[in-house]
């Protein structure tokens, strides 16, 4: 069952993935096994195929969507079994920026890694980031910027968190195509994720700090 589910995932057969997920839930297969051995391994394989130019962006988008759907289907079981959260994240694309493909893929990967995510969507003003941090008390704020002219918004949010006395309570991770580690350092972010895989690793590292 697990191998079949992983193969369906790798083949981007979303209908089959849903069927097998339902079956696995009915048959009481451990959600942890489903996520670790089928979904995460399937997503890793899709990522490798993308790197090898066997797969392209539609396959990466579908992989993200299938991960998200799997997490939604498994969430009640995971909660019932008392699965622990890896951490709480508030995530959004900054003001003036309408891009969300990268953000959505990173969110899916973080969800599979056990993080609870509040997705604020795109074009999120700094005040909203601040109010969400105040209300949801996340461990990490993730911000995405895909345009050179929206990059300064990242620093604006960090400054606003500082002004509101919340900066020390929350870690800040940034990402997006035009960003670099140097830029992230220059604006005072705690971490920078080059891609979805690195974002997961970095988020886990931040939780240990």
């Amino acid at each position: 069952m697990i191998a079949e589910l992983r193969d369906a995932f790798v083949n981007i057969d979303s209908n089959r993935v849903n069927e097998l997920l339902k079956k696995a839930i009915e048959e009481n297969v451990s959600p942890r096994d489903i996520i670790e051995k089928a979904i995460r391994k399937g997503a890793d394989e899709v990522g490798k195929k993308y790197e090898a130019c066997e797969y392209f962006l539609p396959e990466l988008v579908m992989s993200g969507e299938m991960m998200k759907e799997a997490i939604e289907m498994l969430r009640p079981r995971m909660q019932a079994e008392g699965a622990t959260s890896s951490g709480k994240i508030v995530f959004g694309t900054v003001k003036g920026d309408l891009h969300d493909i990268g953000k959505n893929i990173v969110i899916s990967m973080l969800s599979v890694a056990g993080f609870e995510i509040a997705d604020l969507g795109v074009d999120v003003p700094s005040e909203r980031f601040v109010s969400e941090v105040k209300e949801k008390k996340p461990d990490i704020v993730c911000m995405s910027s895909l345009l050179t002219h929206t990059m300064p918004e990242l620093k604006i949010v960090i400054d606003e968190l500082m002004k509101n006395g919340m900066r020390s309570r929350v870690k800040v991770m940034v990402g997006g195509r035009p960003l670099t580690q140097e830029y992230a350092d220059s604006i005072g972010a705690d971490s920078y994720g080059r891609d979805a895989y690195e974002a997961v690793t970095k988020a886990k590292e931040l939780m240990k700090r």
Partner: protein
Amino acid sequence: MTPRERFMVAASLKEPDQVPVAFLRSTYDATRIGLNVKDYIFDYRKKLSAQIKLHERFPGCAFVPGLNPDFGIVPEASAFGAEVFYYEKEPPMCTPVISNAEEIDNLKVPDPHRDGLLPKLLESYRYLIENKPSQHEVDPQAIRGPLDLATELRGVGPLLSDMYRHPEYVHKLLNIATQTEIDFVKAMDEVVGESRIIFMCDDIPGLISPKFFEEFGFPYMKKVFDAFNKKLKIYHNCKNSMHILERLADTGFQVFNFSFENRIAETKRRIGKRVCLMGNVEPIGIFLKGSPKEIDDICREQIKVAGPNGAYVLSVGGGCYGPDQSMDAMISAASKYGRYPIAVD
């Protein structure tokens, strides 16, 4: 030869007197003379003046398109009701108009004389034609490719996902997008007489597999190009397209402004006898941030690889903006190393 004449000779797969240089024009040009982008778009007099100033500052290169309405990437989507956002220094952007695939059934091909920004654009086009100095040529607005317009209307992620989940709706949307572009070009021709060129921008083919390009890209791009047989067709794609090069060229364009991610020697070898290549200096690290010496070195190398036998225009492989010194360096490199016949080592 003028830079535009050189460009046209290279576009006809021949050797001009030297390798031409051409830059893509965009609303970034407004910022060169301190104009707000929105003012630039809607104040036709300022726009004409800004574009002419750019030509006068860089007499050694052509611009693609030449003087043109330059409304950015949003006019077609605006005709479907997409909300347009303007920025002071960046091109305008718009949000999708469809939130699920089924809504595609509600879309209709817009009327370019009535819907969204298109009537203003046609008005701006007429203004340019009627007020340009005689030595300048006016080109039509750059158009979106069908896939590019479809992603503007539906969103990139959702459209790519629909290719798996709702392919029948993707075809419906692409048919509408294709007809929209054809009607838009015809409307521009009706206003001012038939134009010489059509300039299509579409990066999405570079993001999808050869199989999906065959299904969702090729037929629709070809239909647009086929509708305008007499025009010179220029196609811009700033994503890596090595995986679909030959089929892209089969769609019917004559000039290919290709990505810096493409390997230029291989691109020349595979399609360089069928289409004129325009590119492909790396836009950020080199053209935006590099020194004139770095740009000179890269241009010399590119001319050596792609210049022999003509059908080559030296340009940037993506992006639309570079500082004056980078443009000067590229123009200077073309005149230093690009005189025909070009020696091959």
